[in-house]
C-alpha cells in the first residue's frame, strides 16, 4: 500500500459525496472552459478574418455598443488621401435577423475593393457590379439559411438573388452574407453611411509607423478610432465586456466549487475525527495528516477538472451547432485552455483543503479516540 492508495481510499469512503463534489467543480470548470473557449474563439475568428483580408488598420466609431455607429462614407476618401495609406475601403456591417435565421452577419462591401479578393467562389459567381441585386453567401451562411445559388433571399426591405457560395477562409467570412455596399445601404436605411473603413499600409511599413498613422487618423477625424488589426479584439468594448462577463461567471462558479469542496472536506474531517485520532496514536505526524487531507482535496479538484474540461468541450461542441453561434465564431478549446482549466481545478482543490487540513491537524488524539 502506498500513500497515494491511502488518499484514494479516503475519497472512496463516501463515493457518492466525492462524486457529487467532483461534479460541482466539474460544472464550474465546464462553465470556465465554455465561456473562455467562446471568447477565445471569437478573438481567433476576428484576427483570422482581418489577416485573411489583409487589413492593417480598422477605422470605426465604436462608442460602447457591440456594433460601431455608422458615419459618413466620404471619410473613406479623406483617409485614402493620407500619407502612409496604400488602400482604403468602406464596409457597412450589420447583424440582422434574415428570414428564419435569428442572427446573421451581413456585409455591404465596396464593389471592386480588396475585401472581395479572398472570397473563393465554390459555386456560382460574385455579383456582376455594384448595381446588381445579388448576394453571395459564405458556405456556413448558406447551410444556416438553407440556400443555394439561384434562390431568393429577403434582407430587410429588399429581395436578392443568391448568385454564389464562397469560402471566405475564416469563420466570420464563411458565416456572412455579402453584397455590394450601395445595395445594402439602400435596404438597411443607411444611405451614404458606413461603419468600418479598412486600411492597408504599403509593404515595409513597421509597427511604429502604423501606430503613427492610427494617431494621425484619430486626430483628423475626432470621434473615430483607428486601431491596428492585431489590437482590434483587445480594444473592442463589446469583447471586453463579454470577456469580463465570462471571467466573472467562471469566478462565481469556481467560488461555489471552492465552498463545495471545503464543506465536503470539513464534513470528512469531522466524520473521520476518530480515524485521525487512531492515525495520530499510531505515530502519524500531524503534517502527514494535513498532507492526506490536502491531497484528498486536490485529487477531488483534479477529478472535477478533468470531468469539467470534458463537459466544457461537449458544451462548446453543442454551442457550435446552434444557429446563434454558427458562423459567428468557432469555439477554441486548445491544450493551453484545457491545461489551464485543470490547473485551476487543482488550485481550487488545494485551496479548499487548507482549512480542513489545518482543522485536522489541531485534533487531540486522546479526545479524538474517545469520539
Amino acid at each position, binding site marked *: 500500500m502506498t500513500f497515494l492508495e491511502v488518499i484514494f481510499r479516503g475519497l472512496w469512503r463516501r463515493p457518492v459525496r466525492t462524486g457529487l463534489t467532483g461534479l460541482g467543480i466539474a460544472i464550474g470548470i465546464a462553465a470556465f472552459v465554455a465561456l473562455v473557449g467562446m471568447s477565445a474563439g471569437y478573438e481567433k475568428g476576428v484576427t483570422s478574418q482581418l489577416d485573411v483580408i489583409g487589413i492593417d488598420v480598422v477605422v470605426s466609431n465604436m462608442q460602447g455598443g457591440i456594433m460601431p455607429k455608422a458615419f459618413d462614407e466620404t471619410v473613406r476618401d479623406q483617409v485614402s488621401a493620407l500619407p502612409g495609406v496604400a488602400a482604403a475601403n468602406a464596409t457597412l456591417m450589420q447583424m440582422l435577423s434574415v428570414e428564419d435565421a435569428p442572427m446573421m452577419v451581413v456585409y455591404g462591401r465596396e464593389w471592386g475593393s480588396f475585401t472581395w479578393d479572398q472570397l473563393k467562389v465554390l459555386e456560382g459567381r460574385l455579383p456582376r457590379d455594384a448595381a446588381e441585386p445579388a448576394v453571395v453567401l459564405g458556405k456556413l451562411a448558406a447551410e444556416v439559411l438553407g440556400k443555394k445559388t439561384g434562390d431568393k433571399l429577403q434582407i430587410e426591405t429588399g429581395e436578392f438573388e443568391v448568385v454564389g457560395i464562397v469560402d471566405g477562409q475564416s469563420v466570420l467570412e464563411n458565416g456572412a452574407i455579402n453584397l455590394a455596399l450601395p445595395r445594402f445601404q439602400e435596404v438597411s436605411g443607411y444611405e451614404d453611411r458606413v461603419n468600418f473603413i479598412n486600411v492597408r499600409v504599403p509593404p515595409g511599413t513597421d509597427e511604429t509607423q502604423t501606430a503613427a498613422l492610427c494617431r494621425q487618423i484619430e486626430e483628423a477625424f475626432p470621434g473615430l478610432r483607428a486601431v491596428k488589426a492585431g489590437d482590434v479584439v483587445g480594444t473592442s468594448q463589446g469583447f471586453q465586456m463579454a470577456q469580463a462577463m465570462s471571467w466573472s461567471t467562471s469566478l462565481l462558479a469556481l467560488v461555489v466549487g471552492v465552498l463545495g469542496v471545503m464543506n465536503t472536506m470539513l464534513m470528512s474531517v469531522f466524520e473521520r475525527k476518530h480515524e485521525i485520532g487512531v492515525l495520530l496514536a*499510531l505515530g502519524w*505526524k500531524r503534517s502527514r495528516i494535513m498532507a492526506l487531507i490536502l491531497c484528498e482535496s486536490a485529487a477531488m479538484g483534479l477529478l472535477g477538472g478533468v470531468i469539467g474540461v470534458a463537459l466544457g468541450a461537449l458544451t462548446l461542441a453543442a454551442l457550435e451547432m446552434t444557429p446563434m453561434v454558427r458562423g459567428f465564431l468557432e469555439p477554441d478549446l486548445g491544450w493551453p485552455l484545457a491545461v489551464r482549466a485543470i490547473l485551476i481545478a487543482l488550485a481550487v482543490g488545494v485551496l479548499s483543503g487548507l482549512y480542513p487540513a489545518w482543522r485536522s491537524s489541531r485534533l487531540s488524539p486522546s479526545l479524538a479516540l474517545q469520539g
Partner: protein
Amino acid sequence: MGDRPRSARQLIMSDHAVAARDGTLFEAVGLAKEYDDGRVPALRGVNFRINRGEFVSIVGPSGCGKTTLLNMLGLLDTPTGGELRYAGAALSQVASPAAYRAREVGFIFQSFHLLPTFTIEENVQIPMFGLPWKRAERKARAVELLEAVGLSHRLGHLPVKLSGGERQRAAIARSLANRPAILLADEPTGNLDSKNAAHIMELLKRLQQEHEATLVLVTHDHEVARHASRLIRMKDGEILSDPANPAAPGP
C-alpha cells in the same frame, strides 16, 4: 528492515536514556492530570516505575485514571503536574511525540480501532508510514505479523468481515508493526467473550515475550489483570497498591 526501527529509536533518546534502557523504562514522579481548569482531577500525583520487559496490569474501576495514565505513557496526553520519564529522559522533552509513538509504542484499544476502509493487511501497514520503509518491506512485515497472530487466511478482508476476536488479533499485529519497545493495551478484552478474551491474553503474553516488549495493560477485569507479572491497583486517581512500591497505600 529489522534493524531500522532500533537505530531510528536512538534518534529520539539521549545517550543517558539509551544507557538506562536495561533498567527502568518508565518512571513517574508526582504525576498529575486535571481537567476543566483543575475542577476534575484524573491523576493525583502518582509515583511508579516500570522496568524494561515487564508485564504490568493497572486495574481499577471506571474513572480511576488508568486510561489517562496509559495515554500519558503513549504521549497521547500530557500531565498537568509532576514528571514522567522514559528511559531516564523526561517525556515532556521529546521533540516529536509522533516519532516517539511510531518508534517506541504499540497501542491496542478496547474497540480495536481498525480503519474500516482498509483490509487487515493494510491496517497493519498503517503505522509503518512513520518509518522509512519501502512498500515491499511494509507488506512483508504485515504478512509476517498476521501469520504470527493466526490471520494469514484473512489478509485481504475488511475489518467488518472479521469476528471480534479476529479484529483484536489484527490490532495486536498492528501494534507490533514497528517493533516497539512498549505495548500499551487499553481494556484489550473489553469487547470480547470470555473464551476469546482468554485467547487474546495468551497471545499478548506470548508476543510480548517473543518481542521482549514492555506491556502495560489497563483493565477493570481482575481475571484479565492476573495474567500480568505485576498488578497496580488504582482508585480515584491514586495508586492503592503496587508490589514494586510497598510504600504505596494498600487496599
